[in-house]
Each structure stands twice: as C-alpha cells, then as structure tokens.
C-alpha cells in the first residue's frame, strides 16, 4: 500500500529544551460536499476533521479542520524537546476512521 503519510522532523536527536519542527503531509481528497459529479449529483462531504500530535505519550498539539483545509492536508508546527519517544500524528476522518503516522525523537 502506498504511504498515506509523510512525516519529517528537522532533527531526530535533540537537547532538552530544543525546538523540534514537524512537517507532515497526509494524502486525502478532503471532499467538501460542495462539488457535483458529471451527472450533477452532489459528492458527499468527507474530510479529515481532526489532527492530534502526541510526543512520548503526551498530547502536544491538535487541530480541528473544516472543509477549507486543502486536499492532501499539510501541517507544520514545533514542539519543545522534553522526553525521548514516539511522535505520533493521528488524523480522524468524518467516517470515524484514523490515519496514523509516526516518527521518533531522542532527547539528551
């Protein structure tokens, strides 16, 4: 299966207190519900409506997306290096399914 998520940390190893930048891209059409197909029938809304980032099990950042977030949602944000562990990014679809991606950070 082709990768649905691309994650890039600007550093995989950091000193405690350093800022770590996260860039993430998830492949998803983010269907707004405003489009119509060739026959004129409305294409139903189906978007990723929530994004959550945890680092070493602690929630650091989250977002509520509406239909105006572009297709293949891109996000860039930072966190302060505190504890080594997984950086887990989760996107939640309108239909309740999740897309999850992971990177790792080592903190000295």
């Amino acid at each position, binding site marked *: 299966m082709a990768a649905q998520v691309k994650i890039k940390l600007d550093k995989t190893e950091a000193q405690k207190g350093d800022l770590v930048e996260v860039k993430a891209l998830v492949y998803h059409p983010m269907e*707004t519900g405003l489009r119509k197909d060739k026959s004129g029938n409305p294409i139903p809304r189906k978007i990723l409506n929530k994004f959550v980032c945890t680092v070493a099990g602690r929630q*650091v950042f*989250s977002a509520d997306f*509406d239909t105006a977030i*572009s297709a293949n949602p*891109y996000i860039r*944000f930072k966190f302060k290096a505190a504890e080594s562990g997984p950086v887990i990014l989760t996107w939640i679809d309108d239909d309740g399914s999740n897309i999850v991606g992971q990177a790792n950070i080592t903190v000295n």
Partner: protein
Amino acid sequence: MTLTMNRRQALTMGAGALAASALAWSDLPALAETNGFEETIKQFSGGRTPAEGRVNLDLPKLAEDGGSVPMTITVDSPMTEESHVTDVLVVAEGNPRPVVVTFHFSPANGVAEVSTRIRLAKTENIIALAKMNDGSVYMAKKEVTVTVGGCGTS
C-alpha cells in the same frame, strides 16, 4: 379639457416608470450576505472585542489557485505555563463556511507557530484570532486576492 390617453401612451409611461425603478433598485447598496463569521468570532472571543497585535498572519497577497493557499500564523507569546496561547481560530469572511481551522496549542509547543494550506472561494479577508490562557484574544486580518476560486463548485 379631458385627459385622454391612448394605449400606446399608457404603455410608454409604464415602461418608463419600470426602467426608472429598475435603475433605482440597482443603485441600492447590495444587502450584505454573510456566512456568519461575525457570530463565530463573537463566540470565540466570549463577547470581548479582540485586540490587534501579537498575531502575525502570513498569506500571499495574490493566490492563483484558491484551492491551495499557504498560510503561516505566529503568535507572540512566551508559551510558558504562566503565559501561553491556548487556541488559534482562522475565519474566512467570504467562504461558504466561516471556520477554516482551529489550532490548539500548549506550552509543550515552545512557540505558537503553525503552517498549513487553505481553500479560498474568492477574494476575501482571512482573520486569525489567538486566545491566551488568561482569556484575552488578539487578532490579525489579511485580504487575499484569488484569481481561481478554490471550492471546486465550477
């Protein structure tokens, strides 16, 4: 002298009156249509008037593709337990729906900075509001000119 009017005269008068009234109607300012963004802002701010400053909203002046407009928001805050941004709401005045996205920050972010890409239906104002842990709200507004709308309705 009796006033008589033949049918032609009556029709001409009527047409004239109609044309005159059509002109007057188009002169009236367009009734403001809104997607409800003012109410959204009011709810987020808890009724307070947001202050200007502290929020940097970075958007291109001109977006050729309304379907993917890069946006970066930075809020001036130490992001300590004592003083930090809790939420950032982005509102689009001219989109079908007013809310674009809400970001939830914590001191663990270290900085209140985020980038993403958004859809704009047409040339419009985008407003970013930042709420602090003490309840104060700051805002920034930018106008983006859009050449091709991004809602995919065409």
